[in-house]
């Protein structure tokens, strides 16, 4: 988006945020549920974008962290704990597990790493399903309460949508700050050239683990919101396909672009809903759309925009050069 003037960008951003606050006010229950789901999935996809898009570490386990967060929130809030406490526990536990999952990334890369995380994802699913003393097994956990924020009940869909949107805003600002901090630079160095990063004194070991841990912690946050959103959880939504879906969101939106997860989650959550009029065909069309998009632009939607901007900048720069050259010539 760097082609726009800065005030224009800020105005656009404010308009989108205002739209997200105002427009859903007269949405029905289902519309609000879908939008809340978009906000929650965006948080999880932002986490994966940190791990994959910025730090370059492939993970097929983000869905498992959403599951860990969701079960932490469900178990705690049904036992009378407030949701913020549950979110803290969700963050801490996904961070810790994510850190441990980062260790294989120190040894293996690329597709091997993908398969280790894939195996972890399925193992987590087995634990959710089998440890019924904790997770309720296949019957899941029902009657998950929605929180009271500053004394206001958020049982209705609209207030809870604002909880999700507010959480998304907080996470967005935090991630924005993180990728602009030296940490973000270190993550990108890890992705671009780990060897050079190390020779420049970046502790690649620590940052690899951190990339996993922070990305996973955001998955945990998303899960902790998902549980009160659906108010009932069982192991099925947290199987491998959620991890694959989240990965698809990040790639389709544009891995390594700040706004990629927002767009990717929009396509993954909203596009199937818009295609619902096609009845049984909607997931098929969704799959075809994703394939066509990736054939057209393997770097996702923002990749298209990025290439367009780059081309325009090159053109502008060469025009400037031409002007400068002719000036030089006339001066001689």
């Amino acid at each position, binding site marked *: 988006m760097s082609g726009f003037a800065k005030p224009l960008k800020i105005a656009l951003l404010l308009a989108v945020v205002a739209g997200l606050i105002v427009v859903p006010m007269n949405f029905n229950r289902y519309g609000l549920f879908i939008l809340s789901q978009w906000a929650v999935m965006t948080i999880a996809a932002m986490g994966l974008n940190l791990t994959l898009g910025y730090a370059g570490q492939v993970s097929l386990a983000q869905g498992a962290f959403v599951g860990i967060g969701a079960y932490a929130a469900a178990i705690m809030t049904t036992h009378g704990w407030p949701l913020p406490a549950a979110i803290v526990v969700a963050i801490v536990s996904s961070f810790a597990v994510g850190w441990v999952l980062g260790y294989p990334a120190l040894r293996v890369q690329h597709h091997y790493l993908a398969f280790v995380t894939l195996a972890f994802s399925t193992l987590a699913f*087995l634990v959710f399903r089998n440890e019924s003393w904790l997770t309720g097994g296949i019957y899941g956990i029902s009657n998950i309460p929605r929180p009271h924020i500053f004394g206001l009940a958020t049982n209705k869909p609209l207030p809870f949508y604002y909880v999700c949107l507010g959480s998304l805003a907080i996470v967005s600002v935090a991630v924005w700050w993180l990728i602009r901090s030296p940490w973000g630079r270190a993550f990108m160095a890890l992705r671009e050239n780990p060897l050079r990063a190390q020779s420049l004194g970046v502790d690649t070991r620590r940052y690899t683990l951190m990339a996993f841990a922070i990305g996973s912690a955001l998955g945990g946050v998303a899960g902790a919101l998902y549980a009160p959103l659906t108010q009932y959880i069982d192991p099925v939504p947290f199987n491998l396909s959620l991890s694959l879906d989240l990965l698809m969101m990040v790639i389709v939106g544009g891995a390594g672009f700040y706004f990629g997860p927002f767009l990717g989650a929009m396509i993954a959550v909203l596009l199937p809903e818009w295609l619902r009029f096609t009845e049984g065909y909607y997931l098929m069309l969704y799959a075809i759309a994703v394939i066509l998009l990736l054939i057209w632009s393997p770097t996702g939607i923002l990749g298209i925009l990025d290439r367009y901007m780059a081309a325009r900048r090159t053109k502008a720069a060469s025009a400037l050069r031409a002007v400068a050259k002719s000036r030089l010539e006339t001066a001689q």
Partner: protein
Amino acid sequence: MSNLFDLLVAGLAAGAIYALVAVGFTLLWQTSQTINFAQGEFVMLPAFLMLAAMHVGAPFWLAIILGILLSMILLGLAFKMLLVDPMMRHGVLPLAIATMALAIGIKEAVKQFFSAEASPFPSIVPTGDISVLGHAVSLQSIGVLVVAILAVFGLTALLNRTSLGHQMQAAAQNPTVARIIGVPVERMILLTFLINAFLVALASLLITPIYLAKFSSGEVLGQAAFIAAIVGGFNQVRGAIAGGLLIGVLDNLAASYVSTQYRAAVPLIFLIVVILFRPQGLLGRAEERTV
């Protein structure tokens, strides 16, 4: 003891099918760096193609031939030309994601155009038991084992004994040099896609009578084949065979000696251990690391 014998036979039969699927998986990886996340769905689809052929009145043998031919066109030729070719130069990850989307697409198409329910599928091997070393063994297990072993031996012979096989290996190992010495690399890559399609169609024919034809049955199978391919060695055909058999046996033993709930966990933990301590797989060669 008799229990152990039965488990071993059942495990080897399942493992032989995993091996077929895993071999195709590694072939695609070796020749075109394609990680095919739709490999399980590739096994699920041919059975439905055969059922469709029977539905319009073809006898079983003709349906098998039509099903295999259609699979080779759809899952071999069309898959390569429409999806892999345009995406190959963009690297491993976007292509892998595209195959994930393809898996969703195939599953949904089968659900929509055929049925969401499981359909029975005729067996090419007569049902019944025969006695082996004093144990009753189902003919189906033996049939599966024999067909799978024949297919794998046929493929290994093709790869190692014929000029065509040597050209395929050359194309996989070093496309540039292979091109210089006159190997038609493009055609060899296409050939591996066709072989993969043939192998998955064969696996489909063998496994569907046991587990029924269902749109979602590819998920478990695809994952088992992944694990088999990696455990055995991602870059070796014989590794994939060993991995398939090993995972089949391990899975069956885990089901009765560990717990039915965690039977799926045993191969996964095994996979993690193998990747961490011997990432090239039990029989694989170490790959050069790019970094």
